[in-house]
């Protein structure tokens, strides 16, 4: 048994490493003008949404707290990251109508003394900063709302996300947030390139994939720790959990804050992938989409959320695109396959999953469970 566990974690580790290597290699060979670049877009956006979905799953799936405030925390993360990575030369162009109040750029600051290592470190610090900012607001919001039950909690968190969005668009905060206007020119994936000797190494896709991978590993570790088990106990039966000495308020708050942290990180990634950050993009609809990804993958399964997000992004951005442009599966029907049809088909698929495959793709299992089940079956056969 113990040996099996070890084996599984080794296999997972090697698979992750191989995956990262593959992404790095793809990054070097697929240029933006390449037809297959859609794959890279899917990998970039997919990893953003994968982290968002996994962090939402931590709350909705593992702790049983139905929260719909994810877009709000992603917004905080995106803005924090963007504000702290705009180079000073571009600051005034970006804040064209305001006198920017914050003029620190971590990557710039550190690269002055440390070169490109400083840039990397600066980006890392900004990403962590983004997570911390989101976690801080998550904590503040958690204080009043975590006492609420199921759907009241959902609607209250949804409300907070809307309030956050309004605050970030407020003209009076313009010197910090640039009002309702978008932030750009900060450190984004297209700038993640490094010259080593004569070769230019590209990290545009590698970086978001790496951040998502590391973050998801941390979440998986948390879920499998004693705290993660306590979360699941709260989800399964709050009253029993409390009777067994689990402090509900504290553990709900931990889950909510950690989830906000990683939502913030995914928001920062969203900013670097899209190369812009703007409050009006972080609407409730974004939360709904992430929720549907979680459902697609299976509520309570981390690997499910990851698979769900990549499928969601790939299907909606790539595979089903033909449905919008007149030709799909070789059938030409411009009258039917016109703008918007893709999303209709897509939402029908989602509804089918919601109604008939309520457990999603993975149910509550993980990919590693599939290994184990096989092993078990083999053992039994012997």
């Amino acid at each position, binding site marked *: 048994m113990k040996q099996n566990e070890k084996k599984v974690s080794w296999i997972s580790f090697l698979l992750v490493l191989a995956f990262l290597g593959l992404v790095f290699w793809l990054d070097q060979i697929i*240029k*933006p*003008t*390449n*037809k*297959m*670049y*859609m794959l890279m*877009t899917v990998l970039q*956006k997919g990893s953003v949404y994968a982290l968002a979905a996994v962090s939402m799953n931590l709350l909705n799936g593992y702790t049983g707290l139905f929260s719909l405030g994810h877009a709000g925390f992603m917004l905080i993360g995106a803005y924090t990251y963007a504000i702290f990575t705009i180079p000073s030369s*571009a600051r005034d*162009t970006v804040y*064209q*109508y305001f006198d920017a109040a914050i003029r620190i750029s971590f990557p710039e600051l550190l690269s002055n003394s440390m070169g490109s290592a400083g840039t990397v470190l600066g980006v890392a610090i900004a990403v962590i900063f983004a997570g911390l900012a989101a976690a801080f607001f998550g904590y503040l919001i958690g204080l009043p709302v975590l006492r609420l039950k199921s759907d009241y909690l959902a609607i209250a968190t949804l409300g907070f996300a809307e309030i956050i969005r*309004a605050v970030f*668009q407020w*003209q009076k905060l313009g010197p910090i947030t640039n*009002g*309702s*206007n*978008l932030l*750009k*020119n900060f450190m*984004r994936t*297209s700038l993640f390139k490094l010259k080593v000797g004569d070769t230019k190494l590209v990290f*545009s896709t590698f970086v978001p994939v790496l951040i998502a991978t590391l973050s998801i590993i941390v979440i998986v570790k948390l879920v499998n720790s004693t705290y993660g088990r306590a979360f699941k106990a709260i989800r399964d039966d709050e009253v029993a959990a409390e009777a067994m000495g689990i402090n509900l308020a504290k553990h709900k708050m931990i889950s909510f804050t950690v989830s906000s942290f990683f939502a913030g990180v995914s928001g920062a990634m969203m900013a670097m*992938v*899209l*190369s*812009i950050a*703007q*409050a*009006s*993009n972080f*609407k409730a609809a974004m939360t709904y989409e992430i929720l549907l990804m979680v459902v697609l993958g299976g509520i309570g399964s981390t690997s499910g959320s990851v698979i769900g997000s990549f*499928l969601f992004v790939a*299907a909606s*951005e*790539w*595979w*089903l*695109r*033909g*449905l*919008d*442009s007149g*030709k*799909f*599966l*070789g059938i030409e029907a411009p009258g039917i396959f016109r*703008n*918007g049809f893709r999303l209709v088909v897509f939402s029908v*698929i989602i509804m*089918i999953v919601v109604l*008939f*495959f309520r457990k999603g793709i993975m149910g509550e299992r993980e990919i590693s469970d599939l290994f184990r089940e096989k092993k078990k079956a083999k053992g039994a056969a012997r």
Partner: protein
Amino acid sequence: MKKILALALVFCLVAAFAAVAYADNPVVKIGVFEPQSGDNGAGGKQEVLGMQYANKMTPTVEIDGVTYDVQLVFADNASSNDKAPTAAQDLISNGVSLVLGSYGSGVSIAASDTFLNAGVPAIGVTCTNPQVTAGCDVYFRICFLDPFQGTVLANFAKSELGASKAYCLAKLGDDYSGGLCNYFIDAFGKDNCVYEQFPEGTSDFSTYITNAQNQGCDVFFSPVSTEAAAQIIAKADTQALGMPILAGDTWDSNVILNAAKGTDVRICVTTFYQEGANAEFDAGIKEWINSDATALANNGGNDELAAVTVMGYDAYYVALEALKAAGSVDPEAVLEVLPGVTYEGVTGNIAFDDIGDALRDSAFVKECNTETGVWDFVTVATVG
């Protein structure tokens, strides 16, 4: 039952994946990066009309001695800044030589980095915010800019409309209306302006109209999307606004004319083109619009020309000029020659400055005739 459903779903996805691979065509592709849905969908469609008409008139181009078919490749940026980069990437992956668009500044700004990263040149048609081209070496544009337009409008409000206090209304998070309002306020004087922003999804404009009335303003400046415009006009009518409405180039659309017809609201706009300036062109495009049901629908059901359509038409020819000058369909080559391209278009002479902005120094001012539902020419305005 469940299993069959599951299999069907999987099959659909796999088949769709397989269908992604399609054959190459020996043509030159021009990307059309325009909103076809969302707030600016109607405007985007009108802008595309001009390109389609131009493509119909001149379907081929001779590049380096070879005749190429010109194919327009469309991508809908859905008027949404977060969808814009993906739509732009879609065009780039499709192998376009250059891109035209977009209507609405925000999406252009949002996508500028994607174009820059790929080295694919883009020509903005009616995106007037300075940020589109600032700091982006691959973005050019053939329209005037908001600082210019804002100043023109402010001067017009002061001198022609005799306004002393202006009410400015923009949409939250919209670079076009926000930017234009900002430059208008700069020119008009901050102390004489009331500036408000409405959140996305607002449908109740009556309060904003009341605000303008209560604060004793005498011009209502609201360069917002045509969607909001129609509602503002309707409310201005029922609430007897009592001051002229002023707006920028987006309002030069028959959506506005339809909404304003039969009301007693005074509407003035600045724009790129006045119908009738080129009779031959007008007649040709009107005939085409009337003969093509889709085009007619996209133009809002009648053949009233929007300036953005004409701008779209000119942009297409600028693109052809660039291709000819480059002598290649390679985006890099096109980018290299683009700064030097000039073209005598229907909307006037087009040339670029150092930043990539059009050298334009005049704008048309038009007023809506609410009885006949057409635009009346007022003046040509310049700043200087």
